[in-house]
């Protein structure tokens, strides 16, 4: 990797799905991992928010001696300051998670940044193979473990998919020793979000198979029949061929065989 390529990983404060506690966000940490692969210790790690947040140490513990915090209150719009930071620091590759783990998690920030800066954006990146001559070869993650190869010109923004390499362990020692550069920045309040009502997520009922029966017999059948494969069907009787057929039917129904 040429040292002339500036790689920036933008990180946020994540949230553990079970405990609700702050943690390093999974995708953001992968963005740091990918950044470390590309730039090693030269990676610029940036967070917009509270510089005192101990979670930031968890990112630094991945092997960075220093990181930058653009000081912001919570619930403010981070777009302007991050945008400025990136242009001022001449970033070439900007890596971030797809969606934040807390707040609105709209996933819009990378798009807004790209729009603001006029840079190309790639979402759901699985890996960046190399960066050369002002271009980067990137692998996008597609469903079912598939990949697409794309070439993009620098500078660009990429959001990192869960299929990217797992973030390395965060080490306690380097984390607490890392130095922070705090940059004070203008605050822009997010007015729209203030009018939203936020409540704990209501569980969504899984959709039932709606059977629009045209006659009584069909309705009866729909009400009494066991859904295929549902609720633990155990086949003891029958020939192996019949049993294989039952499995085959389920695989077809689930569309894993086509």
């Amino acid at each position, binding site marked *: 990797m040429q040292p002339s390529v500036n790689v920036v990983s933008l990180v946020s404060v994540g949230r*553990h799905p*079970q*405990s609700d*506690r702050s*943690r390093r966000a999974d995708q953001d940490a992968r963005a740091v991992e990918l950044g470390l692969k590309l730039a090693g210790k030269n990676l610029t790690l940036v967070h917009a928010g509270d510089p005192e947040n101990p979670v930031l140490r968890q990112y630094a*513990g*991945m*092997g960075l001696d220093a990181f930058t915090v653009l000081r912001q209150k919570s619930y403010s719009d981070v777009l302007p300051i991050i945008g400025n930071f990136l242009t001022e620091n001449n970033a070439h590759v900007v890596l971030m998670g797809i969606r934040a783990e807390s707040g609105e998690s709209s996933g819009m920030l990378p798009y807004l940044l790209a729009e603001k800066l006029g840079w190309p954006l790639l979402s759901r990146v699985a890996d960046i193979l190399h960066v050369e001559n002002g271009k980067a070869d990137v692998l996008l993650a597609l469903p079912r473990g598939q990949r697409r190869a794309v070439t993009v010109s620098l500078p660009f923004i990429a959001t990192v998919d869960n299929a990217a390499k797992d973030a*390395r*362990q*965060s*080490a*306690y*020692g*380097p984390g*607490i*020793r890392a130095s922070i550069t705090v940059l004070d920045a203008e605050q822009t309040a997010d007015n729209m979000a203030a009018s939203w009502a936020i409540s704990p997520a209501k569980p969504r009922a899984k959709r039932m198979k709606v059977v629009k029966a045209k006659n009584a017999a069909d309705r009866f059948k729909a009400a009494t029949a066991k859904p295929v494969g549902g609720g633990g069907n155990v086949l003891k009787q029958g020939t192996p061929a019949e049993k294989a057929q039952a499995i085959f039917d389920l695989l077809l129904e689930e569309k894993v065989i086509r």
Partner: protein
Amino acid sequence: MMFDWLTPTLIAVLLVLAGIGAVRRMNLWRAGQADKVDLIAGLMAMPKRYLHDLHHVVERDKYISRTHVATGGGFVLAMLLVVFVHLFGVDSKVLAWLLLAALVMMFYGAVFVFKRRLNPPSRLSKGPWMRLPKSLLTFSITFFVLTLPAAGVLPEGFGGGLLTVVLSFCILASLVEMLFGMTWGGPMKHAFAGALHLAFHRRPERFGGGRSTGLKAAVLGETSHGVAKPTDFKWNQLLGFDACVQCGRCEAVCPAFAAGQPLNPKKLIQDMVVGFAGGTDEKYAGSPYPNVEVGNAKGGPDQIITDGLIHPDTLWSCTTCRACVEECPMMIEHVDAIVDMRRFLTLEKGDTPNKGAQVLENIIATDNPNGFSPSSRTHWAADQNLNLMKDVQQADVLFWVSDGAFDMRSQRILRAFVKLLKAANVDVAILGDEELDSGDVARRLGDDATFQNLAKRNLAILSQYRFKTIVTTDPHAFHCLRNEYADFDSDLNALASVEVLHHTTFLNRLVQEGRLQLDTFKGGKVTYHDPCYLGRYNGEYDAPRELLASLGIDVAEMERSGYRSRCCGGGGGAPITDIPGERRIADMRMEDVVSTGAELVAVGCQQCTAMLEGVVEPRPVVKDIAEILAGQLIEEAH
């Protein structure tokens, strides 16, 4: 006689050389970190420690214990007298006869050493150690012959020139081994370093029948954490490594070694010596780490240990079962050293293998290793009608539930125990969701920061309530609470006047007090597996056996039981780091069980239960003692 001067000169020169060597060696140790030891008291206590504590361990092998008393005792005495008789030329028949007697004793011992070395078991190191009995014999014979004239048995100047030349050569050969080798790294080094190691041991509590098994707290917030280089060890740890006699007893009991994982505690200690003395392991003549070739390891006092001296997998293979420590005649602390080095790997390099990183991350974010919701910790007890400390504020007994609360299998043990407590009308309460992981796994995986954090938070919660006793079904939590939390409890004194008990101990009391009505057990043969963290770590071997006896069970003991119990493979985070070997430790333990013909193996630990039940069926049934007791409980009809 013309060569009269030769013997004293040789002795004097070698003594001086030995002295120089000793200073050099001590400087190597002093490169380590400072540690508070009472030097004078240690030196004063040393003979007693040697005679009592060390020999207590050596005694387990009667053959070598007698041999060692004869050889070692004989040599020390003989050497002293040699100095008087042959160096200072003290002309005393009494001394000469005494010397002869000492030499005979030494000779007698050396013969047995020689015999053991004719066909040595694989655990013993070869190489220079094969030479040692010959040197011992040479020493005793040579000085015997030399002393005969002084004792008046033979005339002065007996034998003439040839004999003198031969004898001089023998003196040289044996003294090089016995004196020069002692401080310049020969096999006899163990006597010199061993004696000092006993004097300056890092855990003096272990002498005189005591027990000291809690890990020492890591200092946090420094420029580095844990042991990266040999000089990061405390100086007396380095000294301890030097005391190793390469007897291989540790190797013989190490479950990881037996399972073919790349760990051999003896080699590990020898590699530590290579590390702080500098050099390679070429000269090592014992069993290697399974499937790792000897001769490629290089180290130096200021070189990172895991860069070329020891592969991290070696460190991560250890189950921290303490079998090696228990067995080591030199009272070397392998587990301390291993965890010290793990601390560096985890806290500084962020390199805990396999699931280790994830488990630690979970513990940090959810206070339990599997990342379950902290608010689901008490779900298991939904139907148990247990008091929460939060509500009652005080109780006689606090039941420390441990992370078994999240595991369906362990919950059966918890419920069985609760059933017994209720039958005995114990005033008990639990912490519920306020309880956190004890920190055991984090600490053994080297993450002392997380351990200390958990310990402090747990203590803060405990300090809010009043209770006399903590009981837990998890020996790992038991060990932390009992032996390791004290380091962080000086402010709160949450546990200062609290008795921490394992459930078997507590149940045994209830049974003895007649508070539990139990039916005799009518199943088949039963054996008992001692959990490491209950037995070796806490010395509780009797309560479980007494409990089983109270059910009329005559325990069919395994060959390796009690303090020699073989680990199930579940400790020290080993199932998490899961270093591949040739076999599974749990499978070997299950073979031990099967060989007793038992149909049921009783255990006192949820982790052992999980490990032993992980063995492919058919195999004996695995049950916690609480479950067995609960099954035999005679419930009063109301």
